[in-house]
């Protein structure tokens, strides 16, 4: 397994005349939690889509676990998990059935499926909603289920696309605890609009502006680069072009 779990080289995605991701070069280490920050339309979700083999790059290359996202997607898919912006769950299946379904999709046999479901239910404290249909869950529970479904296949890399979008503060804090508990055990790429979320959870941050990484580093490095005392101020300074990365 390579030291860098994710690597992109001049990764570019164009939709007609619009360049959604522009020559993105990035390395994310094994076990690292990397946050992509940016305003709407900055290219965060498009980047995630390319890294999860959901979208083909227009040019450039992306590698996950040493495999190419364009030519070796069948090797990448078993080792990744994704929780999309919308809670992608089977609405009429119960929480348990959703988890069992995903485990079977990853090819687990009956015993392994039962073991993974029990473990995931315990890790995410899903016991009280286990036999409830996913469509009847609150937003917070749905997000938790969505992330649990992304993890049940024992991925090496987890992609969380705005996992706390639209959640109240308590549900958000609860999800932070879940994400924090995963840190170190797998590589996590998280996109978010929330500065405090990125500040709280990330090992490193990348700030995307108009499809480019405008700044990348640890929180102290970004603050030092911008001369600001908070991530929000640093983000605004970078977004407004006051500061550019050397």
């Amino acid at each position: 397994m390579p030291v860098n779990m994710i690597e992109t080289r001049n990764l570019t995605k164009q939709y007609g005349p619009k360049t959604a991701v522009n020559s993105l070069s990035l390395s994310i280490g094994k076990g690292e939690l990397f946050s992509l920050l940016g305003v709407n339309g900055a290219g965060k979700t498009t980047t995630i889509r390319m890294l999860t083999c959901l979208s083909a790059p227009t040019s450039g290359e992306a590698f996950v676990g040493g495999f190419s996202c364009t030519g070796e997607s069948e090797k990448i898919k078993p080792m990744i998990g994704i929780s999309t912006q919308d809670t992608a769950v089977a609405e009429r299946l119960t929480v348990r059935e959703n988890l069992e379904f995903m485990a079977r999709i990853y090819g687990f046999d009956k015993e392994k499926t039962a073991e993974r479901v029990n473990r995931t239910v315990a890790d995410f404290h899903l016991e009280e909603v286990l036999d409830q249909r996913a469509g009847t869950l609150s937003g917070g529970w749905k997000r938790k289920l969505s992330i649990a479904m992304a993890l049940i296949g024992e991925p090496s890399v987890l992609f969380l696309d705005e996992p706390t979008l639209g959640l109240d503060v308590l549900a958000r804090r609860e999800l932070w605890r879940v994400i924090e508990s995963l840190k170190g055990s797998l590589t996590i790429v998280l996109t978010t609009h929330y500065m405090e979320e990125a500040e709280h959870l990330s090992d490193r941050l990348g700030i995307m502006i108009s499809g480019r990484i405008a700044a990348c580093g640890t929180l102290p490095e970004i603050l030092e680069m911008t001369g600001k005392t908070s991530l929000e101020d640093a983000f605004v300074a970078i977004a407004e072009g006051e500061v550019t990365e050397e």
Partner: protein
Amino acid sequence: MNRILAYSDRNRKELLRDPLSYVFCLAFPLVMLVVMTLVDTSIPRESGMTVFHIQNLCAGIAVFGQLFVMLFTTLTVSKDRAGSFLVRLYATPMTSTDFIIGYMLPMLVICVLQSILIYAVSFMISFFTPDRLNPLGLIASIPVLIPSAAMFIGFGMLFGSLFNDKAAPGVSSIIISLGSFLGGIWFDADATGGTMLDICKALPFYYCTRSARAAVRLDFSASACWIPLLIVTGCAILLIVLSSLAFRSRMKADLA
């Protein structure tokens, strides 16, 4: 295979847990079965109108029920495409073949169960009509209905792949109207003759009811059963191939 069965299970549960699927796929055809049997009792036997006699009606109602399974196939595929559930699954080891078979398999099983239930009720009704149904004919007709079920599921997959979740049910409704009318479920197409019969014969629906009715009568002649069945089987294969191509092409576009 595990992935196909997992996806089939999911689709079966999604359909069976939707109360509307019982209303449309079971209750409505059964209500029509009872209503048309009552209509039949009001029609003098001397009139020679046999389309609502239970031995003809039961096969027609079985095909009518399959039309609604088509509608629910359309709804399942188009709704999945509209949400992000399929996107999540695209990022897993699921292949397009897993998706296609995973959609079709549970619908086919549901169609067979639906036919069994409709025939069971028809058999009971036949005790109250002048024409008693032969259970052997009903049993023989169930496998004969499988190609038409596959054809309608193919239609459902095709519309669900080509159209969005707003338009797809509307397009399916057109096929429901065409299928039930031009399939000769509600009138004796053979008795009409002329252009009307030509139109019926130009479409596959007529052959679905014709072959199923022949099997109910235990009439396995080429003209009554095998040739119509062959036509329906050909159309089913064509529709399944077309719908698979449409789904694959849509999946490829989604992943572009």
